[in-house]
């Protein structure tokens, strides 16, 4: 007889709890009733067809996806360039640039949001796509820098030298050797940036215009007025979308590694 492992029991309770929101939302989005309830009553797709009748959700979904995609591309290119430069050329002061680039992670997003609003109002880009894009890039770049720097920390520069010795020019070496070896870090940086932008509420909240809003914010405002199964169905769409990217991230890089939990020490 095996003794019941109390740690395992607590662990599984915690795991169920942190996933409980999704376990509740997804079923209740299929309710046939006109109000929110769990367990759901009956089964119907009505709350999904209802989404189609609400242009504000469709619009904000498209807006969010566009914003997240452009943010991801921008943050990945800029962050990767910066990280590669910082790792290759070390000099007095490169440490300062490094910590400056990572500094947005240490300041509450509330302050980032407020300060961006104040400044963007001054220069006239508050409430525009550009303003949102810049702010989202700001909070995504540090993740890309960190991931690419981690990828570079195990990068063997003699491989590049070997490439040169075999007659490849610098561009070919970068394209054939450096980039493929860093690809997992760069790709996961891009996916992570996408998710960061797609999920963001706190910063976006200060920067959206009333008519063009991101999806999480649309849900946020809708929730503060009414709670009906429509929130559940639109949330389910977001959950499934996010899940695709999470699984991608797990396949490309591994969540354990992404969150710095990669010690296979025993």
């Amino acid at each position: 007889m095996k003794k019941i492992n109390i740690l395992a029991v607590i662990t599984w309770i915690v795991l169920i709890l942190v996933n409980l929101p999704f376990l509740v939302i997804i079923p209740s989005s299929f309710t046939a009733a006109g109000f929110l309830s769990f367990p759901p009553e009956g089964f119907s797709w009505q709350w999904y067809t209802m989404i189609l009748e609400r242009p504000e959700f469709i619009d904000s979904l498209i807006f969010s996806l566009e914003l997240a995609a452009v943010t991801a591309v921008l943050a990945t290119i800029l962050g990767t360039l910066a990280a590669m430069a910082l790792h290759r050329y070390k000099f007095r002061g490169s440490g300062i640039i490094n910590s400056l680039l990572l500094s947005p992670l240490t300041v509450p997003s509330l302050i980032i949001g407020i300060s961006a609003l104040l400044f963007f109002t001054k220069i006239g880009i508050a409430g525009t796509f550009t303003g949102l894009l810049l702010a989202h890039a700001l909070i995504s770049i540090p993740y890309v820098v960190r991931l690419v720097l981690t990828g570079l920390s195990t990068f063997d520069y003699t491989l590049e030298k070997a490439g040169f010795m075999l007659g490849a020019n610098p561009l070919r070496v970068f394209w054939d050797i450096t980039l493929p070896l860093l690809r997992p870090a760069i790709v996961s940086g891009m996916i992570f940036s996408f998710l960061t932008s797609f999920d963001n509420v706190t910063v976006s909240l200060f920067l959206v215009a009333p008519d063009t809003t991101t999806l999480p914010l649309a849900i946020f405002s809708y929730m503060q007025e009414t709670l009906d199964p429509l929130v559940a169905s639109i949330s389910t769409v977001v959950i499934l979308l996010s899940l695709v990217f999470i699984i991608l991230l797990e396949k490309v890089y591994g969540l354990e590694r992404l969150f710095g939990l990669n010690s296979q020490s025993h």
Partner: protein
Amino acid sequence: MNKRLPVLLLTAPSMIILLGVFLLPMLLMFLLSFENAQESFSFENYLLFVQDPFYVEILWRTIRVSLWTVLTTLVLAFPVAMYMAQATGKMRGIITMLILAPHLISVVIRNFGWVVVLGEGGWINQMLLSLGIIDEPLRLLYNELGVVIGLTDSFIAYMVLAIATSLYAIDPSLSKAASILGASRVRTFFTVTLPLCVPGIFAGVTLVFSLSMSAFVTPALMGGTSVKVLPVIAYEQIMSTLNWPLGAALAFLLLGSTILLVSAFTKIVETKRYKEVFAS
């Protein structure tokens, strides 16, 4: 070869964003926080915290909610981290996935799920009512309890990660050594395992506390109008009252008190012995 030039060139785009969207705006916001209603320089906004008991109460509430969040995440995360440290590679991967994946889905949606579970007509109340355990619905939402539940859900992953990382780093033969020297499992836990993962606990506590102090979405959605924490008040000043200087000052006061409390905490826990053992 001058190394600075390529670095400056390649980091320039990121640095421009950093300067233009972060450093410069923060500076402006800081200056603005010293502006009074007459648009002249004054400490009025900051003095509110000393003079107006309303703001003192709000600050205290913010700290209280954050402390409760730290406590619940710690109590729940520790066993999870312990279990992860014992588990085999595959099981560890599954647990990591299940604890981290929710973290990558918008907090608005997670909070919404909790509202469905905890609301007056929510799942828990329905169940307890139908079982006859309670006569009228419990108030689990739109109070401090609701906020703490929401924040715990949001930040538990950080606590688990911090503690698990420090547990993974402990040589498993240390507990074997304690055991063969005569220490029971409980004794081994308290004399070997726990002292050695103290840095992880500290890291988790500081991080979760800082995050809870500045959390905004969860208190807004799960605390409703009755649990106004400092970030919510700051938001209202900025977006509804349009008193930007006061909003800015509130945000900096929040940041300032968080830094103050965290450094005080660090000062207390980092004894001479702690530094000698854990300094790298």
